[in-house]
């Protein structure tokens, strides 16, 4: 029975556990009731007992240390004049010059304005869409019909942005279905795809097509949590559908709405990088430069790594402050936030 356990114990017994022998009274890992003895465990004892778990954590720990924390530390090149030949350590420090350059760059402020505009449009027009669709789905009394509609509207979420943008071009482009229908009806055709003026609304439409259905999941989960007895009691008291919606449904799902709103506000600066990068060449940087594409073009395409990293770091810090502030505000309003 204890075959795998002993096998793993051998794998797990690296030099680190050698120190455990100094602490006597450490329970064997297969002691029948570990709970009783838990208080007596000293630190090394716990390491010995949990060596399997520690082993299981190591690949994940390595991943997060290398690709999150070391990379996060790599942001110090924002304070350097990074030259690939000189390397990470060899490049010269330039203090906050990259940041003063950044804040003096009208291109950056333009990108920031575009970002906020697109995010604002999405907040106004995209955010309520999944809620409305969820209410519609929730009101269906036939489970079969609801499941069918759900499986249809979830589907676009799994398409890549490349596919979504290609489909949008195919449907809304100058030779697409939409314009053929317009000209067929004797109306003016509208070039939606190549038009910088219409680019921002177009991105909102694309986001709605792709993610509106998927966004209903969380609202539907919240809606099914509402106690049916509340509805029943209020209906008996004479409340109509509208009053039940206003006084029971909405207050019940308010926490989740506020939670999602906070998350959207926190992500305001990192809207749809892939989506917008894909269309930037079609409509031009004037309409489609956002902070992330600015970072990409300055840093990776232009090779100005220090400057690009400064822009990215600036965005990251402002984003973190936004999340923190939004969370604080929601606590002040008596709502639960994303974290405590």
């Amino acid at each position: 029975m204890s075959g795998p356990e002993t096998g793993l114990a051998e794998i797990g017994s690296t030099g680190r556990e050698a120190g455990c022998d100094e602490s006597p009274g450490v329970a064997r890992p297969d002691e029948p009731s570990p709970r009783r003895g838990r208080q007596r465990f000293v630190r090394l004892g716990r390491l010995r007992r949990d060596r399997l778990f520690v082993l299981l954590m190591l690949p994940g720990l390595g991943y997060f240390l290398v690709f999150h924390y070391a990379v996060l530390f790599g942001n110090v090149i924002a304070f350097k004049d990074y030259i690939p030949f000189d390397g990470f350590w060899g490049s010269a420090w330039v203090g906050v010059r990259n940041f003063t350059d950044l804040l003096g760059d009208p291109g950056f402020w333009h990108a920031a304005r575009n970002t906020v505009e697109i995010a604002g449009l999405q907040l106004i027009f995209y955010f309520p869409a999944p809620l409305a669709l969820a209410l519609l789905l929730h009101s269906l009394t036939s489970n079969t019909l609801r499941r069918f509609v759900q499986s249809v509207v979830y589907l676009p979420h799994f398409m890549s942005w490349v596919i979504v943008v290609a489909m949008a071009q195919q449907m809304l482009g100058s030779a697409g279905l939409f314009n053929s229908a317009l000209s067929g009806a004797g109306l003016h055709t509208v070039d939606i795809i190549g038009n910088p003026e219409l680019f921002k609304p177009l991105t909102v439409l694309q986001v709605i097509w792709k993610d509106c259905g998927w966004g209903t999941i969380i609202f539907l989960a919240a809606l099914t949590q509402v106690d049916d007895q509340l509805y029943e009691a209020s209906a008996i008291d004479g409340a109509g559908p509208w009053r039940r919606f206003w006084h029971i449904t909405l207050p019940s799902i308010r926490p989740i709405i506020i939670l999602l709103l906070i998350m959207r506000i926190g992500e305001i600066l990192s809207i749809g990088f892939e989506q917008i990068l894909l269309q930037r060449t079609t409509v031009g940087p004037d309409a489609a430069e956002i902070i992330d594409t600015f970072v990409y073009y300055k840093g990776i395409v232009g090779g100005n790594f220090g400057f690009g990293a400064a822009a990215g770091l600036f965005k990251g810090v402002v984003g973190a402050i936004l999340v923190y502030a939004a969370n604080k505000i929601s606590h002040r309003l008596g709502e639960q936030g994303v974290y405590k």
Partner: protein
Amino acid sequence: MSAVSGTRPRIRRPAKQVRPVWMEKPRKVTLAAKGAALAVIILLVLMPFLVVIATSLSSTESVVANGGWVVWPSDPSLQAYRQIFSGGIVTHALWVSIGVTVVGTAASMVCTVMLAYALARPKVFGGKPMLLLVLFTFLFPPGMIPTYLMVKNLGLLNNYAALIVPVLISVFNLVVLRGFFQSVPEELYEAARLDGAGNFRILVAVVLPLSKAALAMVSLFYAVTYWNSWFQASIYMNDDHWPLQQVLRTYVLSGGQIASSTGAGDAAMAAPQTIQMAVLVVATVPILLVYPFLQKYFAKGVLSGAIKS
């Protein structure tokens, strides 16, 4: 059959929800409006798929005659597919995508399951700091430029590992799996331990079989992510190492020439439109194939349970 008829009330499907008695009957107008709204929504979602598939299956002449698209192929032809599968860049990219998706999903699942299991058990040595370490990355993403430089300095440029290792563990998927592992009743752990099972054996013989639905869902999330990724490939890989989505991006969105790269002569060349749409379909079909399996788990409410946790 007549003998069974006596039991009919019992075999009525309980899943079919009926209107609660207190709810008023909807007016005809409301019903009609709802039906219309649903029909429009379904049409808007499915129409692009229909047009793309139909165009890819059409012959050059009918697409050109119709101005670049068709809703129903009048003379179905597989010419576009034959051309892109004739051993050119699309075929190669398809294999790259399949390889990255399979290897990446396997690697991600192993690492995520291991970490999620360790983080799901109470009072594990180092568990608390590790959890904080993981959750903090949610708040502060490390940034595009330093990530690129890290991949470059690790010598991973133009190595397929660059498409997998930097996105090995998704914190969202990790949290979902951890939530499921935590929902396994503590009594089962105790019982397994009394039977002499160690922690690893408990994972393999108790926890994983109980979390099949979550494992299926999370691996499908990973697979879809790997299959759909193109940006990493565009900055880390040369064009002979591109996966399908990046090829699609270059030839369909940026209007590059694909016909010359397929190695086919221009005599029997299909309209670029049909070829573009065929590539698009090839990039879409795997997802359409796994989708019904995903669907099964959505219906079970697995996801909503996961998100709440």
